[in-house]
């Protein structure tokens, strides 16, 4: 016999279902008066430091049809490359920037849109810089476990070429699925759930 590890198992994920908006963005789906505002809709204030950008895009299924019932969350560093989190040990992030946003895909066009700032570089575990990126998490009806991915910037060619995560992508033509299109200040990031252009999703 040996000692028991005594670990618990993570609660299994279940789909967010078709009515995720009721719980996470009730004002967006017409349930007013419960919360003043939906969480995560405003990321940037007057005092936030950094270059203002927008990130918009769609989440597309295997036929190329945009999902109109998905919900996207993003998490990112501030302009100096610091996360507004107790686990950030390198310094204090911009107090005027939480770095987290939440947006449903539009009921008509399936488009999500974030007004945010361009994040700075943050280090990989071995100290090499990672190229500026935004972490994405996607849930919807039909998605059993929320999907993690990242968006990189098309105007950071050199940094992207040296990015430790992007270097791990075995099939090099798939790197492009993690890089936005468009140009400053308006970037476009379409997420393909499957098919030829399937986005690289992360088990991280």
């Amino acid at each position, binding site marked *: 016999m040996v000692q028991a590890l005594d670990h618990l198992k*993570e609660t299994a994920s279940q789909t967010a279902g078709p009515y995720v908006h009721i*719980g996470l963005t009730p004002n967006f789906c017409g349930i007013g*008066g419960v919360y003043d505002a939906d969480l995560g809709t405003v990321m940037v204030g007057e005092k936030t430091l950094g270059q203002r950008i927008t990130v918009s895009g769609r989440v597309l299924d295997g036929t190329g049809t945009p999902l109109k019932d998905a919900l996207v969350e993003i998490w990112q560093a501030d302009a100096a490359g610091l996360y507004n989190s107790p686990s950030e040990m390198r310094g204090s992030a911009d107090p005027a920037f939480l770095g987290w946003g939440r947006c449903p895909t539009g009921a008509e066009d399936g488009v999500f849109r974030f007004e945010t700032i361009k994040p700075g570089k943050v280090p990989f575990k071995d100290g090499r810089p990672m190229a500026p990126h935004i972490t994405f998490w996607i849930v919807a009806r039909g998605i059993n476990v929320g999907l993690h991915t990242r968006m990189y910037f098309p105007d950071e060619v050199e940094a992207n070429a040296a990015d430790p995560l992007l270097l791990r992508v075995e099939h090099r033509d798939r790197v492009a699925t993690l890089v936005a299109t468009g140009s400053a200040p308006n970037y476009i990031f379409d997420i393909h759930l499957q098919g030829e252009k399937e986005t690289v999703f992360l088990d991280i």
Partner: protein
Amino acid sequence: MSDRANRKPETGAFFPRDRNWHAPALTPGYKTSVLRSPQKALLSLDGTISEITGPVFGHSMLGERDNDLIHNFAKPGESAIGERIIVHGRVLDERRRPVPGALLEFWQANAGGRYRHKKESYLAALDPNFGGCGRTITDEDGFYSLRTIKPGPYPWPNGVNDWRPAHIHFSIFGHGFAQRLITQMYFEGDPMIWKCPIVNTIADRRAIEQLIAPLDWANTIPMDARAYKFDIVLRGRRSTLFENRMEGN
């Protein structure tokens, strides 16, 4: 607070997700997954600072009735119709450590199985006093509670005659973005759980049983509301001496 202040900062990466415990992406019995499931392998790597970190939500953002679905949408002096219940429990991580400050958001159908949503087509009646959403934040020891009415089961378009067992959706924010989780809670004794194609996306019976809240008779409030206990487990974080190095060292 002093106890928390004395804790080591949480800078370790998270335990890998057990992908055999969770549902796979492609589960044809749940038809919507067929065109929405990634088919290529996930890119697996140890968490970086971008996933180890996560936002903090303060208790100050909560309204007084945010965790009371019986009243948070009801007209003054009125309340939602249905079986009054309390759902309570703890948010822990895989190492059995409580997760304080976790934001929980929940949503559900009304007592007749009807959601307040324009895409909802079930003929059951709306309850004018029930919105169906709530939220709370766990305390220092990871505890939370909410008050609501027991949701009804409802039919949904998948197979010809598929019904969802009564359930409450939970969204959980732990301390790191990698812990982000959405799940569903079911009720002890409901025979419909085992017939549900969404429940059955999960292959391991123990993982399903972990989603079923037992009736908690001891915490039931006499003449008022029955209690169900639902503990939630988030990914554990590695925390050995060697994990607490400064990033980059």
